[in-house]
């Protein structure tokens, strides 16, 4: 597990304002999931050779059967995270990338991100107050295992956002620079409280 950049105190009372069953919005700190990043002209073939499902379209993501997501950011940068499972695979590749014998033309990208999961019936209401991107058509076009990735700004912070359709409805996973963790989380809570009943959690 990775260490979250978020102060654990921010995951406790008084920010929990409603029981989970009544919540129309749920925010989760998902920073603990294992991940790594890489870029460079050799990154795509190297990831594919390592057994990852690499999406072909720029700014898109795919989840493989093991539960590992590979997101292509722009054209040749990749973010790989064990979103559902697959931590071992990710850990092993991450170690290889950090070793002195890393593959040529593949450059490691440190990913100490703050990762936030947003879901619930109020997700669109929240997103329309924090981001200028229309996520509605993106939610429509995405599936549980693949879909678009958006590089945008939320509450003034640059983020990578991945809309996903799950059994429980729509969800959005957001990666951001960890130095903004405190600001981003507290601001999202403030806006979220205005949207309605809210619960928060971590790594669930």
């Amino acid at each position, binding site marked *: 597990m990775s260490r979250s*950049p978020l102060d654990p105190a921010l995951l406790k009372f008084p920010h929990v304002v409603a029981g989970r069953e009544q919540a129309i919005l749920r925010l989760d700190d998902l920073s603990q999931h294992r991940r790594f990043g890489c870029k460079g002209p050799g990154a795509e073939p190297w990831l594919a050779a390592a057994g990852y499902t690499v999406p072909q379209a720029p700014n898109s993501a795919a989840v493989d059967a093991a539960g590992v997501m590979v997101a292509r950011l722009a054209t040749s940068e990749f973010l790989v995270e064990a979103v559902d499972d697959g931590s071992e695979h990710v850990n092993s590749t991450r170690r290889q990338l950090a070793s002195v014998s890393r593959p040529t033309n593949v450059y490691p990208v*440190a990913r100490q991100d703050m990762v936030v999961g947003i879901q619930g019936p109020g997700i669109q209401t929240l997103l329309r*107050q924090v981001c*200028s991107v*229309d996520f509605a058509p993106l939610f429509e076009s995405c599936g549980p295992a693949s879909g678009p990735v958006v590089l945008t700004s939320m509450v*003034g912070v640059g983020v990578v956002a991945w809309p996903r359709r799950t059994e429980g409805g729509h969800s959005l996973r957001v990666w951001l*620079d*960890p*130095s903004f*963790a405190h600001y981003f989380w507290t601001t999202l809570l403030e806006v979220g409280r205005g949207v309605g009943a809210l619960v928060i959690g971590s790594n669930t």
Partner: protein
Amino acid sequence: MSRLPAVKGERIDRDTAVEFTFEGRRVRGFRGDTISSALTAAGVRILGRSFKYHRPRGLLSVAGHDVNAMMQVRNGGRSVPNVRADIVPVQSGWDVTAVNTRGGLESDRLAVFNRLGAFLPVGFYYKAFHGKRWFPYWERMFRRLTGLGEVDFQATARSTPKRYEFCDVLVVGAGPSGLAAALAAAERGASVLLVDENPAPGGSGLYARGGVSDTAERTEKLIAFVQGDSRITLLTSTYAAGYYADHWVALVTPECLVKVRARSVIVAQGAYEQPAVFRGNDLPGVMLASAAQRLLYHHAVAAARRVVVLTSNSEGYAAALDALAHGVDVAAVLDLRSECGPLSKPAAEELARRGVLTHYGVRPIEAVAREGGEVGSLAFESTAGTAPGRRKIQLDGIWMSVGFAPANALLHQSNSRMVYEPSVEQFVVKTLAPGVYACGKVNGTYSFEARVADGNYAGASAAAGLGLGDAPTGKVRSPLLECPTHAYPIFPHPAGREFVDFDEDIQVKDLVNACQEGFDSSELMKRFSTIGMGPSQGKHSNMNALRILAKVRGEPIEALGTTTARPMFHPVPLSHLAGRRFSPERRTPLDSQHESLGAVWMPAGNWRRPEYYAVAGKSREEAISDEVRAVRTQAGMIDVGTLGKVEIHGPDAAEFLERVYTARFSNLKVGMTRYGVMLDETGVVIDDGVIARLGPESFYFTTTTGNSATLFREFGRLATWWGLQVGLVNLTGHYAAFNLAGPNARAILRQHTEIDLSEAAFPYLAVREALVAGAPCRIMRVGFVGELGYEIHLPAEHAVDVWRVLLASDSPSRVKPFGVEAQRMLRLEKGHIIVGQDTDGVTNALELDMPWALKMDKPFFVGQRSLRILEKMPRRQTLVGFTLPQPTSGQAQRRPKECHLVLEGTEIAGRVTSVGWSPTLARCIGLALVTPALAAGKQLKIRIEAGEQITADITRPPFYDAAGERQRLGDPA
């Protein structure tokens, strides 16, 4: 002035009373009443005072543009200025007073200005401020006398959320044409956002009835269709205040600002009914006919008992029938035309059957006030019809229906082109911007059927433009039976007081005089006379002003053009514009550690950093001095994680750095670092940092805190522009960094790492990758603070653990955390600059006296060409060091502060860039940018606070350890 029996479609709840006070008087209304409708129902007709002459004023539009009926509303400890009485629903408990009075509405002392008009000519402001001598006097007077409402400085800030909306088609205006457009677009599959500034949709379809309910019923059917269509979202009490590029429209709702990104926009905002201009047209009781109709049908209020309808169109005749239908006595219909138009004829005949006399060819002469200031009579002359001649009618209301001006501000802002169309006497669309459509009155279409057809066409066209359905076939225009707008409803009077602009009290003669003084274009006239610059932004005055201008110049209106209302074209609450304040703040991974150590925070760019660590019983200065001493004598540690941190990989990495920095990097050995200065194209210093070579094709480098995000974007741009094979990775937030410095630094670090830290194995300026306390780190041996030092960079997740381990060390000494202020002094003692503090936006590299950092023999670096030119020119300024004499014991020393001026005689010759008390040297030291002439001397004169001057000795830095031995401190013998 009375409440009517229940009116079908009224918007009031007669079961819920609302009680409030107006100017101290208790008033009772119903829920759903506006302030104005409740006051009118209660018989109150004077609602405010005019801006300039403080004349009594009443209702005008009842459509959100009654600028003389703006109120100060106090309620529950809050006081809100400039509440628009004509549209804001009143609430129980409100204490309402008119703005812009002295001594109350009834006995406004400033009403004396009504008799001083001769001394307040057009352009008075410009003329008053023309000379310097009287400027302060006029400024004080204007500040004292002008301004609407009182700001409540005790008001707490409201965090108003902004939000975004998206749709295929945005329809602005939910009158008959807007409703039809929304339905037509939705039928073809478009998602539609329909907005209207009124509390309910329907527009004039619901109140301009002509005494019958046919139009209203048809409008209600359209509304029902709209409300039943899931593809249409209806927002009421919402106005579109501005159009921006790519169909980005600002909507102002009662709660917040909504930014809409539409794929296409249909403007169906209708038209503003225009007043006639005649002497006394501003008296309370004189109003637009549509205002009276709104009161009748929305609030069940009769605005008068006995009225004349001054008209030149069928809408005026309809208003007369509406009056009769609700028991208002219509004394006469006064038609400005010589005969009734065909569209008006049926209503005119109906009025005649009901005993209402119509006069034709009317020229209003003067409306006269009765005691109390309200309108009491109208004198006019008729020149046509069966009873020509001069007459005077006793009345308590004049309803004006003489024409319209299109609400086309959004169309102007979208770059659509307008043209004046004489057949309708208004501007109509000539060319629409791509994706923008117009329908209804704004398009010059007035009958109900024609507006619905126009809306259908616009809605279908907008949908088709998005690929939804086929484009509609040729547009069918209904034949225009009569012109809705009079060509020149302006009737000057020798005694004046015929108001063109009710916001600024501008009369006909003011505009004529402005033209005669040379301000004879629409733009110049607006600025000189201030017409259209008040709260209503010329919605009721610009067209009439244009007509006057055209007449004075002897040209047609179409030759003059018109002004474009900039967004926001309707006033917007500042809280809406401010919205929720998003101020991103960055924190390093060690933030919680600093907090627990007693950090006193300071902003650094968008980061928060410890300025120093508070110590119980010690002052700020003492705490900082202790931190400096700890670094000089033992060991200290500072969080430098805010530095920009970048990796660059690839075969062209060294070449990239050669071009970006002034130093040379192609010969930098792997495992070594080098200082680099970065310039812009003009040779100005924009950043500096340390560049470490990790491998033949891999470098790691730092930038200053404030520049990291901007520079990383610039690096990407340059790499692409130059076509270099490099990969850039921004580690700024993902890596932590802290600097362990002091004579004991090596001994302390050695306890937590297995690599060889000896001088031979890890010399000054070397970089190593190693485990520290089990965490993978990059360690750079640098000397910014002038002591043996190790800058440790590591992934953020390990930062707390390593920081804690190092801080817990107690052999050979403890490590004292130090903050930004101590670091500033430590580097100042060494004479090291801080870019952005010891440089400014024009400081070039030659002025910093660092020739060793400039490799001018390189083939290229950014800014090199400019430096070559600057080398041949005299220096503008030079950075010098200075010291103050050591203070006499027991006496306070006056010291300069940063940005204090350096003087040469009485002229400014430079400024202090850094200064502070050095605990190490026991004196005040600093840096200053001064003229080269001063730099060549021995002393500086610095002007400190209160204009006092002190003398400082020019001293070449570094002030401490000039030989640099301390940062190269070897192993103990």
